[in-house]
């Protein structure tokens, strides 16, 4: 029972990370119809920037987090500007290839700057508490509550601000939005900023618990794709629900079935579901 609850707790923690990473990806895919294969690598870079600002520069955890999230927003804007915008009216496969290029670039950038050795930042909240036989550190709880706060904040942003509403309009119908005079380029820029920023928030929450490594973004990014496709491209509730679901499945599957093949479940599920329904579970939109 204790093991079970412990796995559920871990599942929720990972799930909340998956949810925000997938959230950023679903926005970009909904807006641009481009699979940003480098999304997981934005998460990775966010983690390293936190290390840089919090530890190397010495701003401390919270201030470092704010600065790194802002910096990642800028990275997102730059990426949209120089990688994806020039390919807007090229055949789609060119954008996929550019996405792979970005992924290789970012991973090797981290490798060159910070090396392949795992890096850590000191855990700002290492205190352990125990509730109903589950051990949890404050930082782990912070991951969950931070993610929930971010999701709520993003929800308010999408529903209550003009920019948010515009983003959703473009995600739903790009041509229609263009006809009503929306500046689609500006919306794309902002979406990339938000997408990279949320990835950096996820990384900031998780970095004190796990080691940083240049390759950590690859698998996470792919899982975000699994979630986005299964939850429906551009669907925010789909990304949140899918994120938590995948976190739980993995924690329980990894704990009870096989830890080595933990990642296979998610990818296998995707292949299976796309085989049965080629446009995804809720798919209307095709790329």
């Amino acid at each position: 029972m204790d093991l079970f609850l412990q796995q559920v707790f871990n599942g929720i923690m990972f799930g909340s990370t998956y949810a925000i990473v997938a959230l950023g990806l679903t926005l970009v895919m909904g807006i641009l119809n481009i699979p940003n294969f480098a999304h997981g690598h934005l998460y990775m870079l966010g983690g390293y920037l936190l290390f840089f600002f919090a530890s190397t520069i010495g701003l401390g955890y919270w201030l470092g987090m704010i600065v790194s999230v802002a910096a990642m927003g800028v990275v997102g804007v730059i990426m949209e500007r120089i990688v994806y915008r020039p390919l807007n009216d090229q055949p789609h496969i060119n954008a996929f290839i550019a996405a792979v290029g970005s992924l290789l670039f970012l991973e090797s950038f981290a490798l060159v700057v910070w090396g392949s050795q795992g890096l850590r930042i000191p855990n700002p909240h290492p205190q352990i508490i125990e509730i109903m036989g589950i051990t949890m550190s404050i930082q782990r709880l912070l991951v969950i509550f931070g993610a929930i706060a971010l999701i709520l904040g993003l929800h308010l942003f999408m529903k209550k601000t003009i920019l948010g509403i515009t983003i959703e309009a473009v995600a739903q119908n790009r041509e229609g939005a263009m006809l009503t005079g929306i500046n689609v380029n500006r919306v794309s820029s902002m979406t990339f900023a938000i997408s990279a920023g949320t990835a950096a928030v996820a990384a900031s929450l998780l970095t004190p618990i796990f080691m940083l490594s240049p390759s950590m973004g690859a698998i996470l990014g792919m899982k975000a794709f699994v979630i986005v496709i299964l939850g429906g491209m551009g669907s925010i509730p789909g990304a949140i629900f899918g994120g938590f679901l995948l976190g739980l499945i993995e924690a329980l599957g990894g704990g009870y079935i096989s830890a080595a093949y933990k990642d296979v479940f998610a990818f296998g599920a995707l292949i299976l579901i796309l085989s049965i329904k080629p446009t995804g579970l809720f798919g209307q939109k095709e790329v």
Partner: protein
Amino acid sequence: MFTKPIHTKLLYLAILAAALLLPWYVPDAYIFQIVTMSVLYAIAASGMNLILGFTGQVTLAHGAFFGMGAYGVAIMTKAGIVFWLALPVSALIAAFIGLLIGLPTLRTRGAYFAIVTLCFGVIVWIVSGNWIELTGGHNGIFGIPRPSPIPVPFFGQIEFFTQTGMYYLALAVLLLVLFALYRLVYSVFGLTFMAVRNNEPLADSVGINTYATKLVSFVAGCFIAGLAGGMYAAMMGAVSPSAAGYMLTFNFLIFVILGGMATLPGPVVGAFAIPVLMEFMQFLDDYRMLIFGALLIMVIIYFPMGLVGGLRRLNQKVAAWRQQKFPESDHASR
């Protein structure tokens, strides 16, 4: 209707001669090994180009099919099966698994196909590192025998214990693959691949079974990848999960794109030029993927047909300029 001008043919002949004579002017064993690897990469990348370049389906599982060929030959030859049987069987296994995966996933389109193949590639990579009984886990499989000699009447036999023997074997397979691809691509049948890439609904409406066309292209590409992987195992004498990994897929992608997507020479040029260039720029080793990642983006934006496409465009420009300047001499240049 698909013929090439004379000077292009002469260029290809010169390259062929240079390739055949290579063991005489590259005595350095290490460089020679790299060139031989390039031949294998050129084979695999040409297979990827069939799927990605000509048919427009972004497969990101190509390394996995290379790995199936490699592990297939490794496992079979260690079990005592002769290489000459193990190689085609391994390639057929890769093609068969390609068929099994292609049947459901080729119903997806565009980005979905790219993601689903990437997922499959990663699964194969994880399995190759964890299915210890079959693959030897992370250590892989060692001591794979070289191909047995082929007896030739009157001449004795062709041996493969030397690097030179393996080089010629790889070169022969590359030429065979290129010859087959040449026939497929420069034909009405090959046009159907490009029709699918260019405009699938229209292809459908003129009676082309686009799903079957994609499947043929995918399975043929996987077969070629398996062939290259099988020879890799025999040449290296060992395989490990990195021979089935997604980094290998990305390497193939780099060869195809930088060399020239949807051109026959492109992947070959990429597979030779890039590893050899890297050897001469050892000091850049840490920056390898930094450079290639950036190049991939730049090339796809500014030269979507890569080096070969760029050269062709230049060639056309020069021809047009010459025709303008010296209208008389045009006949001679053809």
